[in-house]
């Protein structure tokens, strides 16, 4: 089999381990101190990147592109961690990654960046990304990118891909009830919007980082600005999921009494 060309769409989200405080900025909804919050690669996209790297390793001559739409300065900092995880070539687009953007705008921007990758044979491409996002999540971005690129074989909530020697492949997609839908696809191109996959986060490998960095800095330098999240869309209302931490430290109370109180609380 010829080497694979895997394009992974993935960008940054605020590090979920931080204290994230939603605020309304003059430009729309956001997080307190958002520009200074540390970022991580969107966990859903991370899974797809690790799966892509793993697949590329199995098929000689394969190449992984990471297409990232995010603020340039933040992407640069993020790459110092991500670039150590897996070999890829970065395609950077400078724009908002806040999640408060229109999925179609994002998809068009990503599709245009993919179209512009020199030497990429789109007819043989595997287009990877997360089926969801740890930031605000429309759940349709990968499908729309595929649509823009004319790729009609699309799989969402993927946990596994197995390549055959003839270029066909089988895919496991998560469906309701904890079950999988197994599909086979005779050929590429295809869109795979990944769920969690099955691979752990790879260790930081400085040598991979060094190799990636030769492409990362030039890619960042030539990142084109995208007018994402600027006009065209406004958010009437935002809500975060109700979350209440109600820790109480009690003393001299029997387990039965605590249990009774919990039962009352559950009953609401």
């Amino acid at each position, binding site marked *: 089999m010829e080497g694979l060309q895997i394009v992974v769409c993935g960008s940054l989200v605020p*590090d979920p*381990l*931080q*204290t994230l405080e939603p605020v309304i900025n003059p430009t729309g909804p956001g997080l307190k*101190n958002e*520009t*200074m*919050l*540390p970022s991580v690669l969107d966990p859903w996209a991370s899974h797809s990147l690790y799966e892509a790297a793993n697949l590329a390793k199995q098929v000689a001559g394969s190449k992984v592109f990471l297409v990232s739409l995010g603020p340039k*300065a933040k992407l*640069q*900092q993020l790459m*110092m*961690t991500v670039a*150590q995880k897996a070999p890829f070539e970065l395609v950077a687009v400078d724009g908002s990654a806040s999640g408060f953007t229109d999925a179609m705008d994002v998809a068009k921007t990503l599709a245009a960046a993919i179209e512009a990758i020199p030497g990429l044979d789109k007819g043989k491409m595997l287009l990877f990304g997360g089926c969801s996002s740890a930031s605000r999540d429309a759940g349709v971005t990968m499908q729309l990118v595929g649509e823009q690129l004319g790729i009609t074989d699309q799989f969402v909530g993927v946990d596994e891909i197995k390549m055959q020697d003839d270029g066909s492949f089988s895919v496991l997609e998560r469906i309701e009830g904890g079950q999988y839908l197994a599909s086979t696809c005779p050929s590429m191109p295809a869109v795979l919007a990944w769920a969690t996959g099955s691979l752990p*986060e790879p*260790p*930081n*490998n*400085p*040598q991979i*980082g*060094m190799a990636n*960095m030769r492409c990362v*800095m030039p890619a*960042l*330098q030539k990142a084109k600005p995208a007018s994402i999240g600027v006009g065209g869309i406004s958010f009437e209302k935002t809500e975060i999921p109700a979350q209440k*931490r109600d*820790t*109480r*430290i009690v003393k001299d109370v029997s387990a039965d009494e605590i249990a009774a109180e919990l039962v009352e609380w559950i009953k609401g």
Partner: protein
Amino acid sequence: MSEIERMKMEADIVCVGFGPSTAGFLTTLTRALLNEDGTPAFESKAMPGMPLQIMCYERADDIGFGVSGVVTKATSIKASFPDKDLTAEIPNSVIAGTEKVAYLFDHLGASQRDPGTKFVDAVFRGGHFFMGKGPEAAELPWIPPFLRKEDGLVMSMGSFMSWAGSQLMGSGLVQIWPGTPVSEPIFEDDKVVGVRLADQGVDLQGNPDPATFMPGMDIHAPLVVVGDGPVGAVGRKLDEHFGLPEGNHQHDWAVGMKAVVELPEKCKLEPGTVIHTLGYPEQEIFGFMYVYPDRTASLGIFVPSWFDSPVRTTYTYLQHWMQHPYIWQHVEGGKMRSWGAKSLQESGVRGEPHLTGEGYVRIGEGSGTTNVLTNSGVDEAWHSGVLLAEGVIELLKEGKPFTKENLDATYVKRRRADKLNDDLQKAKRARDGFQDGFFKGMMGTGMTGMTNGVVNVSSNSRPPAHRIKTLKETYAGRISEEKLAEAVAQCAKDKQPLHDALMILAGWPEIKMDGELLMSHQDVLLKGGKVQAVGGFADHVTFAHPELCETCEERTCIEICSAQAIMPGEEGEPPEFDREKCIHCGACIWSCSKALPDYPEKANIVFSAGSGGLHSNEN
């Protein structure tokens, strides 16, 4: 493990640790790396045809994680950015404004005060008519010039380091790799030829897992810049190899623990307000509160190595200190946003190691830049990096190699001729008195400060392991031997640290948790970026002679542990270490009471390079 085949990589300059000193070094260096036409000024020797390859490896998961709130004169930092409005660019920064030094009385009567302190208590209580008043406190009417930070900056070090790091990375001239602990320098005889990264894919004992083992890579470079702080693995291994210069020692330490608190609406303190406290919760423990913009503040305490009590639990003392009426009036009803701790090398220039050797150089706190008179270290660390960069640029321009001789003639010469060195020399003996207690220490600092280091008090310095008291000595006259033994036995049985039981027996009230500001030690690990460590690394805290632990009653490593990462193990066994909770403050290193039989300057804790730790850049 020398038989392991390791990958090797070549670079031109490799830096260990990304703290203020390395940031100062790289900020100054990168500005000289391009010609005016944008072409590289120097060619890489490691990769001919490429620009200079400069690497920096940082243990924390991102740059700016796990450092501290600070007030600094920022002289050198400001000089590095003459065209920038720093407080406008750096989040959580503000010009230092009102400064107060408050002496806190022990309103609970629970602290242990020696006669000298009782005398000071009486003087300050009586002196209220000429001193500023606070609830259960006296504000000093005058702050000596050496302590003032007027027109300096109040900053979150995390925010500052993130900002400085992004400026550097934006230049594209250096690579700063977080999440990459460096385990040791690579020696060829007495020459340092590079550094070795920590092994990954190993179990907690360091044994390789055949499926995932990735031996730490060797990074070879003609110049290794060691800026990994006072408890960094590389700096400490250099000290083990070369020893300290004659007459120098690193006996004085402190752990600084602080919280970033969202202040209640009722709090009227202006951003930039700086409060320092002394006298409470123990006479040896100092406190601070720096007010950031947007109703937040960084506040905390320092527990020094000369606080001889083994029950020195910083977190518990922090909670008691916060509740002192003088502080509580400002923070009651506030919310904990984030939290952290760090060891400070308080010997200052007395602890200066050999600054240079063949192929390596030391900068920052681990190189003895902390000024122990002005209690200032960040700007000094930054400046040592700036001075090194100037020296390195000179050597690069002249095409000279990074030999000890050349580094001495450039970097060390600059450092010795700089005001930094004058100030450090003046401060050299400022803390000596504390070796003999709080009262003599305060006298000594005052004398050193007022005479510019001409008149100092003398004392005999001892390594910390030699001065930690036994539990019996600590609580003599306060807790009966019977009750003490009973509590120790119960704690061992429950696998709990001693401090809750013993401090309550000694008269401290129980902390009433509110879940917002006063929370359990375990809960605080989740605040402002959950403490964590990725898997695949070995335990970085171990015990050199586990049998010494078996005879240890006070187990100060457990008591001091900032994150409850070291906890009692099975009875008779050494303490247990949980690497996923460790915040790498390194306080266990100098709080172990068991000196090594063959090397009495060192105690029984082995603190190696490890990953993870604090996960917040707000600190």
